[in-house]
């Protein structure tokens, strides 16, 4: 009898535990009650894809609640976990956040599931929102990033090089030769910190550096080469060959110990320590003024004469799930574009604001240079994010082979064309 009573008790306890779990999960979905009891738009869940700013977003959520009474729950995913993949699991489990992060080329996957944010107040203060031809305004730009050839302005100055003249292949060639001749004097290990290692840095070569072929020199809304690419994987042969020659120059003057086998940490550390005059990364590689003891700047990938733009724009966007709390998401976006939220995002998270009316200047050491380009309208779009998913894993290997000397410039251009067309065909 005792055993039976015990069994019933244990079974009951198990049922209570499981039922308890169910009810806890369910309680999050209700409309949030504010601390002051005023009418609110309900709780909003945000899936953040940048783990490095998680604590700042938690602070943002606390401020949002304090100022509006609305609840924002920030869930962060990142590192080695793919946010897009995780979101699909969340969707299948009927556990979608109200706001989540996407890259521009992922919009099609969520076709019909994203809210149209057209006409919201914040859209009047930025030109960086994500607009889809069929879904309308779908993406809130929470930051702007830029990528080009980052340089150590102090080193260039000491070598007598004017960065503003770096707008052609020949100018770069002369610049690299000068720096190379003065390496010891300037304390450089190599002219350039460029790494074509494909296994861990394929995103850099395959997406960002390759993106220069697509956009360098074009206006922000010019989609000539991405359209060509997405039309069955076509490339402009002449432009690709010029790009190849420029990459060849980079290969010649990069640190041999970094070029093929290096890591992101080695590349960035080398630049921060003043061992490289140039680096092939964006403003994310040096985020704090404390990281460097010199002035930073950006120079264009001038593989064709006259190229004078850097690539700038939001690398990803926050979107509102149309079956979630859209009103809550819209309210948050409008608040987030405002002064108090921008203060946290710019001054504490180190992001660059995409909003014209933001009064805060980013602390990022590259910001000054970025702003110069953006103000002069000399920036191109991030259309590399619109290429077919996974293409970077193919192109990065071609960069690596070129860096190892297995291909020459013509070989690089033709191989690139072949692997891209094959990738699109399959």
């Amino acid at each position, binding site marked *: 009898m005792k055993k039976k009573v015990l069994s*019933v008790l244990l*079974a*009951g306890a*198990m*049922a*209570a535990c*499981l*039922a308890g*779990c*169910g*009810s806890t*999960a*369910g*309680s999050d*979905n209700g409309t949030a009650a504010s601390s002051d009891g005023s009418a609110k738009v309900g709780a909003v869940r945000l899936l953040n894809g940048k783990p490095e700013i998680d604590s700042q977003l938690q602070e943002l959520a606390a401020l949002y609640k304090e100022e509006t009474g609305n609840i924002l729950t920030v869930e962060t995913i990142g590192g080695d976990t*793919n946010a*897009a*993949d995780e979101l*699909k699991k969340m*969707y*299948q489990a*009927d556990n979608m956040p109200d706001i989540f992060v996407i890259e521009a080329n*992922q919009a099609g*996957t*969520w076709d019909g*599931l994203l809210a149209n944010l057209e006409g919201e107040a914040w859209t009047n203060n930025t030109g960086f929102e994500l607009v889809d031809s069929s879904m309308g305004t779908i993406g809130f730009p929470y930051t702007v990033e830029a990528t080009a050839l980052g340089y150590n302005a102090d080193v260039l100055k000491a070598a007598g090089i004017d960065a503003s003249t770096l707008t052609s292949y020949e100018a770069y060639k002369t610049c690299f030769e000068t720096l190379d001749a003065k390496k010891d004097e300037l304390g450089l290990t190599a002219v350039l910190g460029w790494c074509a*290692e*494909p*296994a*861990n840095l*394929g995103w850099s070569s395959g997406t960002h550096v390759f993106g220069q072929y697509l956009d360098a020199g074009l206006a922000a809304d010019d989609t000539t080469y991405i359209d060509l690419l997405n039309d069955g994987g076509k490339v402009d042969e002449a432009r690709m060959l010029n790009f190849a020659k420029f990459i060849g120059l980079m290969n010649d003057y990069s640190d*041999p*110990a970094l070029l*093929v*086998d290096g890591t992101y940490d080695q590349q960035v550390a080398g630049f921060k320590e003043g061992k490289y005059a140039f680096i092939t990364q964006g403003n994310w590689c040096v985020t704090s003024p404390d990281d460097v003891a010199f002035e930073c700047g950006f120079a264009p990938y001038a593989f064709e004469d006259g190229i004078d733009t850097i690539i700038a724009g939001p690398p990803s966007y926050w979107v509102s799930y149309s079956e979630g709390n859209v009103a809550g998401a819209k309210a948050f976006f409008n608040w987030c574009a405002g002064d108090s939220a921008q203060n946290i995002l710019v001054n504490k998270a180190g992001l660059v604001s995409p909003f014209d009316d933001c009064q805060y200047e980013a602390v990022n050491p590259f910001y000054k240079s970025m702003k110069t380009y953006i103000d002069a309208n000399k920036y191109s779009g991030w259309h590399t994010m619109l290429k*077919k*998913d*996974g293409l970077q*894993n*193919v*192109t*990065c*290997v*071609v960069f*690596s*082979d070129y860096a*190892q000397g*297995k291909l020459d410039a013509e070989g690089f251009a033709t*191989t690139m064309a*072949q*692997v891209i067309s*094959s990738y699109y065909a*399959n």
Partner: protein
Amino acid sequence: MREFSTGRKITSFGLMGLGAILSVGGLVLAIMKLLDNFRGAMIIGGVVMFFVGLYLFPTFKHHRSIVNVIFLFPLLFAFAVTVIVPLVLGIGYSFTDWDGIRVRGFIGLENYIRMFKQPGFLWSVLITVLFVVFNIILVNLVAFLLALLCTSKIKGLGFFRAAYFLPNLIGGIVLGYIWQFIFSNVVTKITTAIMQEQTYSMLSETKTAFIGIVIVYVWQYAGYIMLIYITGLNTIPGDVLEASAIDGASPTQTLFNIKIPMIAPTITICTFLTLTSAFKQFDVNLALTNGTGSVQNFFGNYLTNGTQMLALNIYNTAVINDEYALGQAKAVFFFIVLAIVSIVQVRVSNKREVEL
């Protein structure tokens, strides 16, 4: 003859009926997304009630079977939810254009036809087979030699056994990154110093990177297989070895004519384990090379997935390239190949054991 009381019958049928109603009702509410706070309790309570009712079912003849079913149910349920249902769903998805979110249409065998037209996929199949062959031989050879060493009379046996087994306790991802550091930062420094010119990591060249993966895999897995061989070698009766020694058998004769035939079942287990494990190679592959590496001319194509094994190819197709249905089709193909190879291998090994 004993009979069941009416109260027992009513309790049993009542609990089963009520349990079924509650469970189904809870599921319906879950599908309709209603009553968040109660449906979990309804489902769990319903299931418990149903099984209590089943336990009290008025039968002597089938009572033992009912108890067996109740005890087996959690395991069978978990197996069905985690293996059978995903397998069936996966096969179904492979005939659609599922993108991980929605199924927009049924496309028949298109995914299966498409995957065999991908040179990169065919290359992955080819190198996976090569990898399996290399590993079955090398892992078993190294493991067996280590087992012989660890069953000999040398000093510090415990230390050696632990040392050889230790790599198996480190996860494949961590192991991959450790060896990547060794290949890229340690080995290159040594070779650069020796050659007096900049040398690149063996991971940057497809052929040598493949060898690198084999080395890491053998290093990781040989210790585990060694333990099984040690167990096998320890089960050989001492009197047989003693008799062979009295008959004047040399150590080599003892090894090939006594020990190896007598551990044939162990060899079967080890080759089976090595085969399936090598086929499913993923984590070391991901961490060490991420499948990169060029192949200049594979049926006229320049491939960029030189070291990408089948499992990684499936993962990349689905998750990185966002083609979940195509990935599923490849996974179904993978499952069929693995099932056939495993069955054939076990059958052949068992037959050989009988002959031995």
